[in-house]
């Protein structure tokens, strides 16, 4: 198979100058060559440039379903924290919770609400938490204070070092 002869879908042999009749023994090679085109979608009618670009950029690790191929109980067991300290502005002492006990944000937030007897507002990606005087934040592995809820749960639970429930007056950005 002549990989080198196909450039941008054009078979340059067509325009090559030679002495024989056109067609003939070239036909079989043409068929084989067309399978070798970079466009991997052979049976689609639309040669969608957009799709080609999407396909050629390598998917990042965190976005691929089922990758790397490990069972979910291993994924939950990764390096990082189990118990984290939880502080609440105005509360006299800190508490500790085991992040592994929760599977998602709603469960965690409910547990926090129960523990400290307050309500967290409603989360939206644009505006953070609305509707209450409290905002849940956490300290990540880099030491930065982040808003709880922005990243996927797995990513959060493996990088969360500490939780702090801030009073709205202390969090100027929100």
């Amino acid at each position, binding site marked *: 198979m002549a990989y080198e002869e196909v450039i941008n879908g054009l078979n340059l042999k067509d325009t090559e100058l030679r002495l024989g009749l056109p067609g003939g023994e070239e036909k079989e090679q043409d068929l084989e060559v067309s*399978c070798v085109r970079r466009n*991997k979608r052979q049976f689609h009618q639309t040669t969608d440039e957009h799709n080609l670009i999407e396909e050629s950029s*390598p998917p*990042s*690790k965190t976005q691929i379903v089922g990758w790397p191929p490990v069972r*979910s109980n*291993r994924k939950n067991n990764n390096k990082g924290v189990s118990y984290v300290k939880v502080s609440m502005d105005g509360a006299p002492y800190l508490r500790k919770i085991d992040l592994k006990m929760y599977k998602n944000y709603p469960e965690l937030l409910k547990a926090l609400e129960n523990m400290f007897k307050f309500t967290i507002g409603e989360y939206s990606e644009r505006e953070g938490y609305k509707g209450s005087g409290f905002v849940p934040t956490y300290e990540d592995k880099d030491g930065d204070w982040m808003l709880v809820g922005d990243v996927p749960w797995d990513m959060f639970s493996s990088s969360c070092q500490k939780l702090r429930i801030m009073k709205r007056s202390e969090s100027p950005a929100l």
Partner: protein
Amino acid sequence: MNYFPDEVIEHIFDSIASHRDRNSISLVCKSWHKIERCSRKKVFIGNCYAIDPERLIGRFPCLKSLTLKGKPHFADFNLVPHEWGGFVHPWIDALARARVGLEELRLKRMVVSDESLELLSRSFANFKSLVLVSCEGFTTDGLASIAANCRHLRELDLQENEIDDHRGQWLNCFPDSCITLTSLNFACLKGETNLAALERLVARSPNLKSLKVNRAVPLDALTRLMSCAPQLVDLGVGSYENEPDPESFAKLSAAINKCTSLRCLSGFSEVAPRCLPAFYPICQNLISLNLSYAAEIQGNHLIKFIQFCKRLQRLWILDSIGDKGLEVVASACKELQELRVFPSDLHGEEDNDAAVTEVGLVAISAGCRKLHSILYFCKQMTNAALITVAKNCPNFIRFRLCILEPNKPDHITSQSLDEGFGAIVQACKGLRRLSVSGLLTDKVFLYIGMYAEQLEMLSIAFAGDTDQGMLYVLNGCKKLRKLEIRDSPFGNAALLADVEKYETMRSLWMSSCDVTLGGCKRLARDAPWLNVEIINENESNGMEQNEEDEREKVDRLYLYRTVVGTRKDAPSCVTIL
């Protein structure tokens, strides 16, 4: 043909355990078929939808042990919807109604309900052994039924299942008269454990050889357990976050020292590394060590521990051991036969220097010449390394390499890894299972088709260029039974080239490939003895029949040979053509 009476032939057959050999025997002649089927005690069914319980019982009425597998392998990685199928209930129901003398049930990737477990526990008076691997759908209430009703229970082995833990008292449900336990593994349970009940159970089980507890069993409880079970061969340790005080540590050491039969160690899911030295005295006896859940233990502690394990045959660890750690393993563990290195950093957040590379793999291959099985997650690989590994270890039966970044080439030459894997299949003439990764063209499949004569299972992800790749495999690998492919450019031409091939295979999985609905329909028409299942993202994708949809690519295709036609329990997201 039969110079001996049937009983003598049966006696001869008794010494043949392998189910493949027994299957062959049954094909020799009618007489042998009959003798074999009436004397068969153990049956293995690799795909629960290939046959139905009625036919199983009809053929093997004296069945005592049944192994069933349900969902396709990629279900372990969330590629199969939960409701897809693989329900064990109809099997237990049929076996109960036919009054089969079932003693052992081993299930993998099946859906098990509390009702099924209850029915199981009440239907078979001699039931002895339940092994569940990667199953789901049940709770500790189901375990309570098993504990309470199976008078002769010897083995309860729960490996990596999703079990809803109701924090009840299932351990309390073992009656005082239950003294026959030989193996108890509940490491995958997430909730609290009734420690007193566990201790009483262990104390009255003199034959207990294997005990694997869950995270909720702390250090002092473990010490007491080991003290009343010094005959243990296989121990799975729980968790203990805090550093033990000197007295606790001393007690633990004393208990461990008495366990002179201990050969296998696992668990350590949340363990303070300073507890590990308590186990040093028994390291030299260990043949199997599973520290792959020990995320808290750093590389250097692991290395210190492993270097004492001179007799180790099986090692499962995390890649936090690093290449340096693997070099220590290579020099210390000369008897190593199986190695699994799992990834510890699954979110790509860290620039992980401690992860393993081709250097560790080469070191292992050079030091551990008895190695025949490997599962290796790494961040990079080279052809040169694979070629060296192939030279050092031509005895691989299982070779599974997973480079964490898809499509990653040889990191030194930037070429594809075709030559490296080619060297592996060429050198390892007994290779039965292979998983490939990294940047791969059709050429690697040419090599696989040409050289991998004993290959039974092949896993492909993000590899190949054209249909020819898949064709090389289908045409070349005569013993292929299971082929699973994801995110690779193989389409209808490859799928339809040799339909008869699928009769020789258990199953084919293709997801995010280039096969279309039209191609799958054509296959289903040409091969009525196959179940061709299309798994859709959501229900609405299923049933439209117009022209345009025929060219739609199929998200997930799973096909398998079967003698019982279309299954009736498929959910709406599955279309069976």
